[in-house]
Protein backbone atom coordinates (compact mmCIF):
# COMPACT_ATOMS: atom_id res chain seq x y z
CA UNK A 1 0.00 0.00 0.00
CA UNK A 2 1.17 3.50 -0.81
CA UNK A 3 1.92 5.60 2.27
CA UNK A 4 -0.21 8.48 0.92
CA UNK A 5 -3.21 6.16 0.63
CA UNK A 6 -2.70 4.92 4.16
CA UNK A 7 -1.89 8.27 5.81
CA UNK A 8 -5.01 10.19 4.85
CA UNK A 9 -4.83 13.99 5.10
CA UNK A 10 -8.57 14.52 5.47
CA UNK A 11 -10.93 12.78 7.89
CA UNK A 12 -12.65 10.35 7.48
CA UNK A 13 -10.51 7.80 5.66
CA UNK A 14 -11.90 5.94 2.67
CA UNK A 15 -11.31 2.56 4.31
CA UNK A 16 -13.07 3.28 7.63
CA UNK A 17 -16.32 1.54 6.73
CA UNK A 18 -14.50 -1.57 5.56
CA UNK A 19 -12.33 -1.67 8.68
CA UNK A 20 -15.21 -1.45 11.14
CA UNK A 21 -17.35 -3.91 9.18
CA UNK A 22 -14.50 -6.39 8.82
CA UNK A 23 -13.21 -6.39 12.39
CA UNK A 24 -15.81 -8.92 13.60
CA UNK A 25 -14.25 -11.68 11.55
CA UNK A 26 -10.65 -10.46 11.57
CA UNK A 27 -7.96 -12.00 13.78
CA UNK A 28 -10.39 -13.59 16.20
CA UNK A 29 -9.65 -14.89 19.68
CA UNK A 30 -7.66 -18.10 19.46
CA UNK A 31 -5.83 -17.12 16.30
CA UNK A 32 -2.18 -16.18 16.04
CA UNK A 33 -1.49 -12.49 15.58
CA UNK A 34 1.20 -11.30 13.19
CA UNK A 35 4.67 -10.59 14.55
CA UNK A 36 5.58 -7.30 12.92
CA UNK A 37 8.88 -5.48 13.20
CA UNK A 38 8.34 -2.20 15.01
CA UNK A 39 10.52 0.64 16.22
CA UNK A 40 10.84 1.08 19.96
CA UNK A 41 10.41 4.77 20.71
CA UNK A 42 12.88 4.33 23.57
CA UNK A 43 16.18 3.99 21.79
CA UNK A 44 14.89 3.66 18.27
CA UNK A 45 15.84 0.02 17.81
CA UNK A 46 13.78 -2.51 15.91
CA UNK A 47 11.79 -5.01 17.97
CA UNK A 48 9.31 -7.75 17.27
CA UNK A 49 6.04 -7.93 19.16
CA UNK A 50 6.89 -11.47 20.26
CA UNK A 51 9.76 -10.06 22.34
CA UNK A 52 7.03 -8.72 24.64
CA UNK A 53 4.43 -11.49 24.38
CA UNK A 54 6.92 -14.23 25.29
CA UNK A 55 7.14 -12.65 28.75
CA UNK A 56 3.41 -13.16 29.40
CA UNK A 57 0.08 -11.48 28.76
CA UNK A 58 0.63 -8.31 26.76
CA UNK A 59 -1.85 -5.51 26.19
CA UNK A 60 -1.47 -3.98 22.74
CA UNK A 61 -3.33 -0.72 22.21
CA UNK A 62 -3.34 0.96 18.81
CA UNK A 63 -3.50 4.71 18.62
CA UNK A 64 -2.08 7.99 17.42
CA UNK A 65 -1.67 11.40 18.99
CA UNK A 66 -4.72 12.70 17.12
Amino acid at each position, binding site marked *: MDSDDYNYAT*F*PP*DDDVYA*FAGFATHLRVGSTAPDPVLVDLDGGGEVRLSQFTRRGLTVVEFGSF*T
Partner: protein
Amino acid sequence: MREAHPGEHYPHHESFERKIAHANAFRGHFDVRRPILVDDLTGTAHRAFGRLPNMAYILGPNNRVVFRSDWTDPATVRVALDYLLRVRQHRRDGMRLAPFYAEIEGARWVDSAAFDAGLLRNGPRAVTEFREAQERWARGEHLGSLKR
Protein backbone atom coordinates in the same frame (compact mmCIF):
# COMPACT_ATOMS: atom_id res chain seq x y z
CA MET B 1 -0.34 4.09 13.30
CA ARG B 2 -1.64 6.88 11.05
CA GLU B 3 -3.10 10.05 12.53
CA ALA B 4 -6.83 9.54 13.11
CA HIS B 5 -7.80 13.22 13.03
CA PRO B 6 -4.96 15.10 11.34
CA GLY B 7 -4.98 18.87 11.60
CA GLU B 8 -2.76 21.87 11.05
CA HIS B 9 -0.74 21.24 14.23
CA TYR B 10 -0.40 17.47 13.76
CA PRO B 11 -0.84 16.71 10.06
CA HIS B 12 -0.83 13.30 8.41
CA HIS B 13 2.51 11.50 8.25
CA GLU B 14 4.53 12.33 5.18
CA SER B 15 7.73 10.87 6.62
CA PHE B 16 8.80 8.40 9.27
CA GLU B 17 10.55 11.24 11.10
CA ARG B 18 7.22 13.05 11.44
CA LYS B 19 5.61 9.86 12.72
CA ILE B 20 8.32 9.52 15.37
CA ALA B 21 7.93 13.20 16.31
CA HIS B 22 4.18 12.76 16.82
CA ALA B 23 4.76 9.63 18.90
CA ASN B 24 7.13 11.58 21.11
CA ALA B 25 4.59 14.40 21.41
CA PHE B 26 1.93 11.85 22.40
CA ARG B 27 4.16 10.34 25.05
CA GLY B 28 5.05 13.73 26.46
CA HIS B 29 1.51 15.10 26.49
CA PHE B 30 -0.04 12.10 28.25
CA ASP B 31 3.07 11.13 30.25
CA VAL B 32 2.90 7.60 28.84
CA ARG B 33 5.10 5.17 30.78
CA ARG B 34 4.34 2.07 28.70
CA PRO B 35 6.60 1.05 25.83
CA ILE B 36 5.54 2.73 22.59
CA LEU B 37 6.24 0.77 19.42
CA VAL B 38 6.04 2.64 16.13
CA ASP B 39 4.74 1.00 12.97
CA ASP B 40 6.22 1.66 9.54
CA LEU B 41 4.96 4.49 7.34
CA THR B 42 2.52 2.29 5.40
CA GLY B 43 0.96 0.86 8.58
CA THR B 44 1.96 -2.76 7.99
CA ALA B 45 1.21 -3.82 11.58
CA HIS B 46 -1.85 -1.61 11.96
CA ARG B 47 -3.44 -2.96 8.79
CA ALA B 48 -2.62 -6.56 9.76
CA PHE B 49 -4.42 -6.15 13.09
CA GLY B 50 -7.56 -4.59 11.58
CA ARG B 51 -6.67 -0.92 10.93
CA LEU B 52 -9.14 0.55 13.42
CA PRO B 53 -8.09 3.79 15.12
CA ASN B 54 -8.14 2.66 18.75
CA MET B 55 -8.47 -1.12 18.92
CA ALA B 56 -6.98 -3.21 21.72
CA TYR B 57 -5.65 -6.74 21.92
CA ILE B 58 -4.34 -8.89 24.71
CA LEU B 59 -1.82 -11.40 23.41
CA GLY B 60 -0.39 -14.45 25.11
CA PRO B 61 2.79 -16.34 24.29
CA ASN B 62 3.35 -16.97 20.58
CA ASN B 63 1.15 -13.92 19.89
CA ARG B 64 -2.02 -15.90 20.55
CA VAL B 65 -5.04 -13.58 20.65
CA VAL B 66 -6.85 -13.99 24.00
CA PHE B 67 -8.84 -10.74 23.99
CA ARG B 68 -9.65 -8.08 21.44
CA SER B 69 -11.94 -5.09 21.20
CA ASP B 70 -12.65 -2.67 18.38
CA TRP B 71 -12.19 0.25 20.78
CA THR B 72 -9.93 0.59 23.80
CA ASP B 73 -11.87 0.93 27.02
CA PRO B 74 -9.43 0.76 29.95
CA ALA B 75 -12.07 -0.59 32.37
CA THR B 76 -12.91 -3.46 30.02
CA VAL B 77 -9.25 -4.25 29.42
CA ARG B 78 -8.74 -4.38 33.19
CA VAL B 79 -11.64 -6.81 33.62
CA ALA B 80 -10.25 -9.02 30.84
CA LEU B 81 -6.73 -8.92 32.27
CA ASP B 82 -7.92 -9.78 35.77
CA TYR B 83 -9.91 -12.69 34.35
CA LEU B 84 -7.03 -14.01 32.26
CA LEU B 85 -4.58 -13.74 35.16
CA ARG B 86 -7.03 -15.62 37.38
CA VAL B 87 -7.32 -18.39 34.78
CA ARG B 88 -3.53 -18.58 34.60
CA GLN B 89 -3.36 -18.96 38.38
CA HIS B 90 -6.04 -21.67 38.33
CA ARG B 91 -4.00 -23.50 35.69
CA ARG B 92 -0.89 -23.27 37.87
CA ASP B 93 -2.91 -24.58 40.81
CA GLY B 94 -3.83 -27.65 38.78
CA MET B 95 -7.53 -26.88 38.43
CA ARG B 96 -9.25 -28.81 35.66
CA LEU B 97 -10.16 -26.26 32.97
CA ALA B 98 -11.90 -26.52 29.60
CA PRO B 99 -11.55 -23.80 26.97
CA PHE B 100 -14.63 -22.01 25.66
CA TYR B 101 -15.32 -19.08 23.36
CA ALA B 102 -17.03 -15.91 24.59
CA GLU B 103 -17.94 -12.49 23.20
CA ILE B 104 -19.25 -9.38 24.94
CA GLU B 105 -21.08 -6.25 23.83
CA GLY B 106 -19.15 -3.43 25.43
CA ALA B 107 -20.33 0.02 26.51
CA ARG B 108 -17.75 2.71 27.08
CA TRP B 109 -17.93 6.15 28.59
CA VAL B 110 -17.80 8.86 25.94
CA ASP B 111 -15.66 11.70 27.23
CA SER B 112 -16.78 14.37 24.77
CA ALA B 113 -14.91 17.18 26.49
CA ALA B 114 -11.58 15.36 26.23
CA PHE B 115 -12.29 14.36 22.64
CA ASP B 116 -13.15 17.93 21.61
CA ALA B 117 -10.03 19.22 23.36
CA GLY B 118 -8.01 16.69 21.40
CA LEU B 119 -9.48 17.83 18.10
CA LEU B 120 -8.63 21.45 18.97
CA ARG B 121 -5.09 20.41 19.83
CA ASN B 122 -4.76 18.80 16.40
CA GLY B 123 -5.86 21.99 14.68
CA PRO B 124 -9.03 23.78 13.49
CA ARG B 125 -9.28 21.61 10.38
CA ALA B 126 -9.63 18.48 12.53
CA VAL B 127 -12.58 20.10 14.34
CA THR B 128 -14.30 21.10 11.10
CA GLU B 129 -13.81 17.75 9.39
CA PHE B 130 -15.21 15.82 12.33
CA ARG B 131 -18.24 18.11 12.65
CA GLU B 132 -18.94 17.74 8.92
CA ALA B 133 -18.61 13.96 9.19
CA GLN B 134 -21.01 13.94 12.15
CA GLU B 135 -23.59 15.86 10.13
CA ARG B 136 -23.30 13.41 7.25
CA TRP B 137 -23.55 10.43 9.63
CA ALA B 138 -26.69 12.00 11.15
CA ARG B 139 -28.20 12.14 7.66
CA GLY B 140 -27.47 8.44 7.29
CA GLU B 141 -24.74 8.90 4.75
CA HIS B 142 -22.03 6.27 4.69
CA LEU B 143 -18.63 7.85 4.44
CA GLY B 144 -15.80 5.99 2.85
CA SER B 145 -15.92 2.81 0.86
CA LEU B 146 -16.11 -0.90 1.58
CA LYS B 147 -12.92 -1.47 -0.37
CA ARG B 148 -9.68 -2.47 1.28
